[in-house]
């Protein structure tokens, strides 16, 4: 069998993505969820024109392939991903490029080139802390920390009500919200 000459091949675009989630996401679950969202949003016929494939996925960075004239639809599909296996998830599209190499160099490797030390502090250690807002004080445990952003787990009934209302497991706060500053890891 001869392969199709390059002039007759469909041209593609490559989307660099970054996945933000409450927990760790295996590649397999991410693929399933994206394809499920594509199927529910556009149906089988629409999906066959898009040619969505997940090419690589490492440490929450990934590259998605789609047809050249279907980039907007692909963005819409990625935007409708709400949760994966019960964990709230958001997919950020960092940029679009015409080649895999372009997408990788332009959007995924920029931190390494421009900022030699990004100083991302990711900790899983759990520490108690409190946050004071105008309706009262929230006590909780720090679950995730990523630079200034903190996920706070709280279990008192009033907090559970708020968290249920917004469909998340953790309070999303920053280091600036916390009163006692002894949280440096």
């Amino acid at each position, binding site marked *: 069998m001869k392969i199709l000459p390059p002039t007759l091949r469909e041209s593609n675009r490559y989307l660099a993505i970054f996945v933000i989630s409450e927990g760790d996401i295996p590649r397999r679950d991410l693929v399933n969820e994206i394809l499920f969202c594509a199927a*529910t949003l556009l149906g089988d016929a629409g999906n066959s024109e898009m040619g969505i494939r997940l090419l690589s996925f490492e440490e929450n960075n990934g590259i998605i392939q789609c047809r050249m004239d279907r980039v907007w*639809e692909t963005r819409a599909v990625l935007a409708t991903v*709400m949760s994966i296996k019960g964990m709230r*998830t*958001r997919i950020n599209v960092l940029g679009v490029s015409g080649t895999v190499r372009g997408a990788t160099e332009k959007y995924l490797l920029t931190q390494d080139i421009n900022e030699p030390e990004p100083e991302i502090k990711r900790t899983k250690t759990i520490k108690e802390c409190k946050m004071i807002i105008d309706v009262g004080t929230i006590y909780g445990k720090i679950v995730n920390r990523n630079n200034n952003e903190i996920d706070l787990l709280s279990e008192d009934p009033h907090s559970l009500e*708020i968290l249920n*209302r917004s*469909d998340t497991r953790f309070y*999303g706060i920053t280091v600036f919200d916390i009163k006692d500053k002894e949280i440096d890891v």
Partner: protein
Amino acid sequence: MGIIKSSNFYDLNVHALPDYADSPSRMILEAKDMGYSGICLTSINPANTFHGTKITVPMPRDFDICTGIEIQADNVSKLNKFINKSVNKVDIISVNGGHEDINRGAVENGHVDILAHPASQGNPLNHVLSKAAADNGVAIDFNIDALIRHKGASRVRILTALRQNVRLARKFDAPMVITSNARSHYDLRGPREMMALGMLMGMTQEEALHALSTVPGSIIERNRNNNRIMDGVEVVQ
């Protein structure tokens, strides 16, 4: 693509603590990372009280933070009472739409800036409401969280209603805004993703771009301008 890159994007309906689970600072940081030039932190609660926003994060540069309130009411007289109470206290007044009476009361009140999620119960607007919205300068909101949260039949119904709203707004020249109606930072989406979902509702690319940049920008500008007395009356000197 140049025009998209040079635009300023705004998200005019974002909820934070104490109503929902994320602090204002977290929302601001996340929105800034995504490429927005401003967000509106909207209070929403049954008592319709405005929580002053205490922003603890050092103020980011080139970022606009507005305060807002989303009014929930059962009938039109209560709605008007709450609107009059919050005039001059907040930057942006939006009304939690859905019921036909409330939608009507909102678009006929000149103080209202945004009619938020009018199609949340699957009922589209009609020609009378769209015309009133165009006359009073009330922006019709297209909330993308309807497409994200709902699945199946209810999503189909809401999307149908949203499509009709786009058609009517285009016909009567009513302002459209796309908002995220975010309850946590997992609900925020980047500007281009919001545009993509807007285009799924039947907007053209230019309409989606304006609904995310120039229309919200002009709403903020209009309310920040102290010389404005009411629609069409302005202190010039």
